[in-house]
């Protein structure tokens, strides 16, 4: 059995409905929008391939002392993770306790035509553990196992990496063409509701 990526995204959204969630580029954003609509706690990284986990790392470090945000979630693809792979070492060194990275792994660059990535020969879980992450799991391709893993990730201390293998089937979705300034401001405004700090 292979998990369907939209089903996985819906479960992640439900598991972390009131926490900051950083979404990687391409189909992940478009499918999440089609499933649950635009949400203020979702940060849509429209084209920063390879940078999603690092953005989430900065958020997790910055929100470490905020009570309201128990977790900072990153939904990353295998191709994008491999493009910024050094961040696994940085996360392991800094150990941000709120960071949860869900690697939705279909083994290909789906948005650009399905070219293979190096994911099939890369053990993301072992690399994360060797880099010093608090925990990492390969999630069996069953919905019950996915829900168990997300429940565990909600409660356990991070940084946590979940590798979730999905198929390459994808629904037809529209392009998302919003002004990125609005995306940043909406997300920031949502964070600011309970964070009084200003940069200056």
């Amino acid at each position: 059995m292979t998990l369907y990526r939209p089903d996985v995204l819906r479960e992640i959204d439900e598991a972390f409905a009131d926490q900051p969630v950083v979404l990687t580029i391409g189909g992940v954003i478009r499918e999440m929008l089609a499933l649950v609509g635009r949400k203020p706690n979702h940060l849509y990284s429209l084209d920063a391939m390879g940078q999603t986990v690092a953005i989430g790392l900065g958020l997790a470090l910055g929100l470490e002392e905020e009570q309201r945000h128990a977790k900072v979630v990153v939904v990353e693809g295998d191709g994008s993770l491999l493009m910024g792979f050094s961040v696994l070492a940085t996360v392991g060194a800094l150990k941000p306790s709120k960071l949860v990275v869900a690697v939705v792994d279909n083994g290909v660059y789906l948005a650009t035509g399905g070219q293979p990535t190096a994911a099939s020969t890369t053990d993301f879980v072992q690399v994360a553990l060797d880099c010093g992450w608090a925990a990492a799991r390969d999630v069996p391709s069953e919905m019950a196992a996915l829900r168990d893993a997300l429940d565990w990730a909600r409660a356990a201390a991070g940084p946590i990496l979940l590798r979730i293998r999905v198929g390459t089937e994808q629904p037809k979705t529209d392009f998302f063409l919003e002004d990125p300034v609005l995306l940043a401001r909406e997300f920031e405004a949502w964070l600011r509701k309970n964070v009084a700090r200003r940069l200056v």
Partner: protein
Amino acid sequence: MHATGASASLEQRSQAVVAGLEAVDPHFVLYLPSSTLKLVLAHFLPGGPGHRSGRRVFPIPREEEGISILSGLALAGRRAVMIFQDNGVGNLLTALLTFPQPYHVPLFGIVTRRGGLGEYNSMIHTVSERTEALLDAAGVRWFQLDARTPIGDWASTIERAHTYACTTHRPVFVLVNLMSG
């Protein structure tokens, strides 16, 4: 009368950069390796006077990774700076122009200059002398501190450049020449 940057030693220039950064008072200091930045980094690393409770100082392996971490920190409302060398500017351009620049996220970087007068490396000028052109082509705002700038103005320029990044909602870099140029 203030000394010019030209008559200031590496120690004086480094102290001026440190004074500017301490005026910014960053919660997070991200750094990449640089021999010319050694004195500045020593201030923030364990054993240095700038290594204190409430401030996190850590290395990053690539400039583009630093840009993204800075972006997350800025969205979380934290003051942060990345300190790196100008031959890494090329590494960060795509990350800069696909997230903080189009999303209007304020970032701040101290970029040490290589190449030019005082350079001892036979190769590094090939990339470093093009730093301004690269940043201009990318539409990134920068300020320069070198031999032409009175050393007494360096710290306040660094502090004001950080404020300018915040008030104009974009990345701003200060290029600092710690060598004799």
